[in-house]
């Protein structure tokens, strides 16, 4: 068996007033780089970033599964409540995780819901962060389909969530990677994807405040796949039009899950950004 350099750990984590068992993976050493997975999925999406030898040389890449996702269980009593992600919870999770691991001024990179929350972090925590990278970032997404069917006893949630994720990818991305991305979605717990979408499509609207982001305090890089119709290049453009100094690149031939649907193409866009951040340009 050829072993990968990725190491997975569990840790006890105080979050939302309760002890929670959080799972995370890491590889490499140097500047801490926290990667945030998409709604309803888990940290496996970043496998290629964790495994990339050139990134590992200069970065300590760390990927956690959000509570309720992947190998991080929901808190005790989950059966009595609906899971609903909010801006406050998500921010507490990321900044609390960085503190819990004593990470000094980490870079935070997030995709989709993660691409939204990095805009919030740019507003509220810029001084504690070295740089922010938003993948598929938009300030808000109006609901264009009814997500209640993704959490319905008469519809198989895994199949429905997988089918929604499938369409968000590029037809040019390799089959194997696309279908693995779908598989991660099929493994989500009931109501978790829709709970994340509450933040993405209802609560987490920051259109009114993005103009206050100061990229001279914390650089902001935005990378968006051209085949994404959830957070389209046009949605990211609307952000850059109002955030002075944000650096925006359209990723040709990629969709909503660049890091997992086409890792090779994505790394081609990511490596120069990480080099620029390291050089402090």
């Amino acid at each position, binding site marked *: 068996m050829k072993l990968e350099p990725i190491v997975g750990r569990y840790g006890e984590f105080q979050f939302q007033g309760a002890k929670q068992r959080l799972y995370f993976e890491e590889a490499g050493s140097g500047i801490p780089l926290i990667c945030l997975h998409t709604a309803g999925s888990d940290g496996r999406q970043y496998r290629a970033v964790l495994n990339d030898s050139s990134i590992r040389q200069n970065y300590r890449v760390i990927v956690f599964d959000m509570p309720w996702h992947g190998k991080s269980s929901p808190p005790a009593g989950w059966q009595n409540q609906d899971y609903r992600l909010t801006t406050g919870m998500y921010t507490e999770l990321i900044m609390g995780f960085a503190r819990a691991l004593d990470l000094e001024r980490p870079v935070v990179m997030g995709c989709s819901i993660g691409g939204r929350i990095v805009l919030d972090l740019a507003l509220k925590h810029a001084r504690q962060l070295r740089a922010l990278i938003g993948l598929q970032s938009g300030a808000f997404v109006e609901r*264009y389909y009814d997500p209640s069917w993704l959490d319905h006893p*008469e*519809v*198989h949630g895994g*199949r429905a969530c997988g089918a*929604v994720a499938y*369409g968000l990818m*590029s037809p040019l991305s390799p089959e194997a990677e696309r279908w693995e991305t779908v598989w991660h979605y099929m493994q989500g717990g009931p109501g978790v994807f829709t709970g994340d979408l509450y933040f993405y499509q209802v609560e987490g609207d920051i259109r009114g405040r993005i103009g206050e982001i100061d990229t001279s305090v914390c650089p902001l890089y935005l990378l968006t796949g051209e*085949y994404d*119709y959830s957070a389209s290049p046009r949605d990211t453009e609307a952000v850059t039009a109002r955030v002075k100094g944000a650096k925006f690149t359209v990723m040709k031939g990629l969709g909503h899950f660049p890091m997992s649907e086409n890792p090779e193409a994505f790394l081609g866009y990511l490596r120069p950004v990480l080099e620029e951040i390291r050089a402090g340009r």
Partner: protein
Amino acid sequence: MIEGLARLVNDNPAIVRWGRRMNQTFMVEVGAEQYLVKVAEGKLAVEKGPFTQRSWVFAIRAKREAWERFWQKTPAPGWHDLFALLRRGDVAFEGDQRVLMAYLQYVKLVLAAPRGA
């Protein structure tokens, strides 16, 4: 494009397996033209309208130009998925959404089957 759909799907076990439990009839409209797609255990038969009094469980309606862009061998961004058309307002889903969402992956693969054919 849709006339050849039955052969494209029925000869492809990688699509049929996603609809193995489906026994339903749904409507596809390509502009003014109506097609009833009758699915039995993942295999289907297509009947061309017009119809006067026929039942279907859900309907998917889009303009001919939208389907033509959707059926390109490599569709352009925004034209590559049923939900992409939904986001841009170029498709309507009617009828029983529960059945559509339960078989969404199958329906997506079926309707994309004519690409490059």
